[in-house]
């Protein structure tokens, strides 16, 4: 049993390594002075006020909302169609499937960013917000496909055949049977897309200007130039929002299914 206790202690320690930096940021964000002290000498919300009133952050926040919303709305229908095609016509498209899933990992952010920058320059769209939106839609697509595909795999095709055999036209089958049954997958896909898009940085750095830049890019510029806890305050808002979003995603879909963690260990009979 001591080995087991040591194992648990090790896991807790490693999880602490993962978690503690975020906690430090949260503590620091309430620091009343510009020079950070630990433990903080009192509590203050002045850095939150600073973060929320800094004009470049305000502009970037609006940009982030526009780009994330538009990118997600663009990626959802394309990703859903792709997921349906891939799961239903699996064998022929398997190579594409694997490639699409791996693409955000395979293509280095700087290579993709520079590629988009060069393309945008070639098209004369250098300062256009649409480039940023298209880039975000492409980057979140694999996450959308993966989430929706889980729901498609669980969808019994017999239900669609039943509707069709009762006289529903294909478009009606899709709207009344397929789409409602895919709803949990679509919700999770939208959530993933929003999280990924809202946090995307490297590619956006290459294709945005001071006017169109999104929050992570503005935050990067701020960190490079200033050291006060304004960044800690804004980061805390990001951390809390992400944590809530992950929690909601787990509730909605069961994240262990999305990440393929359901194996023998959770199968009923082997318990």
């Amino acid at each position, binding site marked *: 049993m001591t080995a087991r206790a040591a194992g648990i202690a090790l896991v807790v320690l490693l999880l602490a390594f993962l978690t503690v930096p975020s906690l430090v940021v949260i503590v*620091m964000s309430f620091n009343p002075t510009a020079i950070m002290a630990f433990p903080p000498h009192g509590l203050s919300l002045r850095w939150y006020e600073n973060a929320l009133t800094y004009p470049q952050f305000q502009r970037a926040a609006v940009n982030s909302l526009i780009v994330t919303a538009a990118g997600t709305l663009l990626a959802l229908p394309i990703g859903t169609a792709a997921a349906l095609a891939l799961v239903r016509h699996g064998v022929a498209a398997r190579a594409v499937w694997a490639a699409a899933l791996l693409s955000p990992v395979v293509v280095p952010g700087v290579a993709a960013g520079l590629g988009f920058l060069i393309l945008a320059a070639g098209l004369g769209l250098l300062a256009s917000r649409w480039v940023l939106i298209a880039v975000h839609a492409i980057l979140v697509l694999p996450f959308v496909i993966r989430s929706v595909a889980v729901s498609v795999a669980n969808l019994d095709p017999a239900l669609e055949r039943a509707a069709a055999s009762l006289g529903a036209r294909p478009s009606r089958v899709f709207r009344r049977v397929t789409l409602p049954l895919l709803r949990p997958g679509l919700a999770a896909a939208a959530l993933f897309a929003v999280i990924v898009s809202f946090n995307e940085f490297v590619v956006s750095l290459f294709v945005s200007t001071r006017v169109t830049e999104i929050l992570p890019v503005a935050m*990067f510029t701020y960190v490079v130039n200033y050291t006060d806890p304004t960044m800690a305050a804004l980061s805390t808002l990001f951390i809390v929002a992400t944590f809530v979003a*992950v929690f909601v995603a787990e509730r909605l879909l069961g994240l262990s299914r999305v*990440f393929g963690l359901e194996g023998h260990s959770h199968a009923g009979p082997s318990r």
Partner: protein
Amino acid sequence: MLFATALGALFRLSVLEFVPGSLRTGGATAANFRAVLAPQYLRAIGETALLSAATTILTLLASYPVAYALARARSGRVRSLLLGLTLAPFFTGAIVRTYAWMLVLGNSFVTWPVRLLFEPSGVLVGLVHFSMPTMILILAAALAHVEPALERAAASLGARPARVFWRVTLPLSMPGVVSGSLIVFAWTFSAFATPELLGGGRVKMIANVVKDLALDSFNWPGSAAFAIVALAVTLALVAGLGRLLAPREAS
């Protein structure tokens, strides 16, 4: 539907092809790649390879226990907690996570035994932290498909826990170890935010050179040559990964 699929593939392909296109517009192709071989750039490539290798090994060691706990957790609540703690950093953006390490490594109230901020060692810590969630998820997925009954069988035949691990669990989870390591290596090889902020301009990895050349010196062709180097290495690694895993899937 198939059109949409093709569209997705086309998008992906287009990402890959813009870069060589830029070399044509820049002219003189070989010169850009010769420039990559300049001493200060070779040092960046060497540093990148070294940091990526160290990150991969440390990440693997640090992630395996967590992945094992995640895959073997009996109660759904513990599993959700572990998964949540792993995924929250996974989805927290690179900037926020790197900034957090700037605070941890560069503050005035903890004196680290060695200087970490703006040093390769600090970048290494940040990279391991950045790679861990991915590695944990890949390893846990592999471990979840290792039949626990096999471990119990080995134990009931008299194997001690350490032996069960070395002879049963670890070999069976090898696909996860291999793919996780390759993905983390590939990812670290093109890391940008972590070396940019934790390295403070003193630690240059390939991605930082790409950014410096493209956005500061406006040398797009030279920058593209570097991006190609990073892309080629990652593609080679992923192709190797595909080849390694293909026979297992076939059987």
